[in-house]
């Protein structure tokens, strides 16, 4: 493997589905690229990845082709041959697409994904990885390799919060530095009566960043295939840019205190 500088991997993970992982991954990639970084967005939701659907890309080569190539000739493998490019004004980033066929997706091995991501690290400043919502072999491997794990949560109803809690505890159990795991709340389209503060107490941690509820803007972005951060005027776009700025150390960090203490009883009883 080559010597030299290796870029950061930002893993976008959650234990609940449909919390906005893909949308946030796309916007991170877009924002990082508009700041001048070389960025690759990798779709590791192998079976039902949506990145190309959202960006209206029709990929000719996918991670399945890359996986075959890296297995056949690891020495000469160059991941750049398997990428597509997304462009929109000042935004431009590479995309490693999810497989087209489900049987290809089913048969990709974790070590192949690992080798592909390692190769991408040598060629990009940032590799943003979109994943599935499970502690699968591939996702655990991505977490190990990642510089930052963005653990995305949503305050929805009790089962979702239960899974967020379990996911949080499981990731902490993996023994990473606290600073590697960033808890981000997507307020999404939530119509819940559950208090944010209660959820933070339960998780024993503050949310590192909170994205505001802007369902309309998010839906428009999915429909048009244009990242939110491109249209600079929505609150959600602002909050996404802020998050990326914090990742790239351009914003002043405020270190929050650890949370603890009593959760209101009706929520707490599910977690005894």
């Amino acid at each position: 493997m080559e010597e030299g500088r290796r870029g950061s991997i930002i893993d976008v993970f959650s234990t609940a589905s449909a919390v906005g992982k893909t949308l946030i991954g796309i916007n991170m990639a877009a924002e990082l690229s508009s700041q001048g970084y070389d960025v690759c967005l990798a779709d590791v939701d192998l079976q039902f990845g949506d990145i190309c659907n959202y960006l209206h890309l029709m990929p000719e080569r996918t991670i399945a082709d890359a996986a075959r190539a890296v297995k056949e000739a690891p020495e000469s493998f160059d991941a750049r041959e398997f990428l597509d490019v997304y462009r929109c004004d000042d935004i431009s980033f590479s995309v490693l697409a999810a497989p087209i066929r489900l049987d290809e997706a089913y048969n990709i091995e974790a070590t192949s994904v690992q080798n592909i991501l390692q190769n991408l690290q040598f060629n990009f400043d940032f590799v943003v990885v979109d994943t599935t919502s499970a502690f699968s072999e591939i996702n655990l491997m991505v977490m190990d390799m990642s510089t930052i794990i963005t653990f995305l949560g949503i305050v929805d109803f009790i089962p979702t919060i239960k899974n967020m809690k379990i996911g949080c505890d499981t990731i902490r159990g993996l023994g990473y530095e606290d600073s590697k795991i960033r808890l981000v709340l997507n307020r999404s389209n939530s119509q819940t009566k559950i208090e944010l503060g209660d959820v933070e107490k339960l998780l024993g941690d503050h949310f590192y960043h909170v994205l505001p509820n802007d369902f309309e803007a998010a839906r428009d972005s999915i429909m048009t295939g244009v990242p939110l951060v491109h249209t600079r005027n929505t609150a959600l776009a602002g909050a996404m840019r802020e998050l990326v700025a914090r990742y790239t150390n351009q914003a002043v960090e405020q270190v929050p205190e650890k949370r603890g203490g009593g959760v209101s009883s009706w929520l707490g009883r599910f977690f005894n």
Partner: protein
Amino acid sequence: MDYQVILIENNRVMLERLSTVIQRTKGFSLVARYQRAGDALGQGAVFKPHIILLDIDVGENRGLIHEFAEAFQNAAILCISNHWDSDGASEVVKAGAKGYLIKPFSSEELVDAVGTFGKSGMAFGSKSLAFFSPKGKSGKTTLIANLALSLAQKSGEPVGIIDADLQFGDMAVFFNLTPKSTIVEATRDIKFLSPITLNSYFVPVPEMENLRVLCGTRKPEYAELVNIQSFEEMVRMALSLYRYVLIDLPPGFNPISVAAAELATKTYMIAMMSGGFELVHMRRAIEIFKAWPDFKTRLGTILTRVSPCNSAERKRLESILEYPISAILPNEYILVSAAANKGRMAVDIQPNTELSININKLSDDIIGLQGMRW
């Protein structure tokens, strides 16, 4: 009056041992015992037995079950064997036996067996229903919980839910249950279980005596402990206990979801309408199921949060999917989440909503399905 029991057991030592258990069990009287089934057939009638325990480890005894059922029309025949064998159990039930008990059994197991099989017998013509979704957040667990309740209420027959969404199963939360045992223990122990002992791994749903739930893992890492072969055996055994077995699965194609779909009488593919690419994903997933020669009958589809939830919209969605839709459910987010937060079910709290009506319709369709041999 006590249950009058006739015991037929070829092995002399086992005969003594089981006789002692029966004699010591409150409410049971051993009225006669035989080593040979032929003797029981010829002589047993004078004792007017309620229960006949028949050793089927002797091969020819299996062939006599039908004669026993004819000769002792007021008795329940429970087969006893050293081991569980789902094909064999299916055959003995077809021949007229009511249940299956693993020997040696304890007093508790004997009482449980009579309690479980005594009235209706082992379930026969049972149906297993696997619920598959391409991606998460499909409304699957909500549907299964409500559908199971509806099936239990409408059919009056035993219904079991298996939460096989191994890492993030929510069934226990939905029903507000605190399980002592889960799918991890049930699959671990399956080699040593009989239907009677497996039943105790399923947690009863309060105030719904014919609905039980085998809960999911307590921690995501326990998912690895569930062996696929043991899971398959466990599902087959559950089919002898419950008329309907509903299996909740993790999203996507993975070893457990593939195994469950292969095994199930019917697989329902579910997605939630959320303005994304759910129909695209469903179409791709349906293509995979087309490998089954009988996919048209074995694969159903259900869409949740359909708005407007009417037949015109259903037709529109069917033309996009290029596949018939088994059911559409409206968006009842507030009702469903309020119910789930309380551990109650929407079909129970508000039976007249569109959601409840559509779920009840689906449960009528399922009751009308052809059952399978387990």
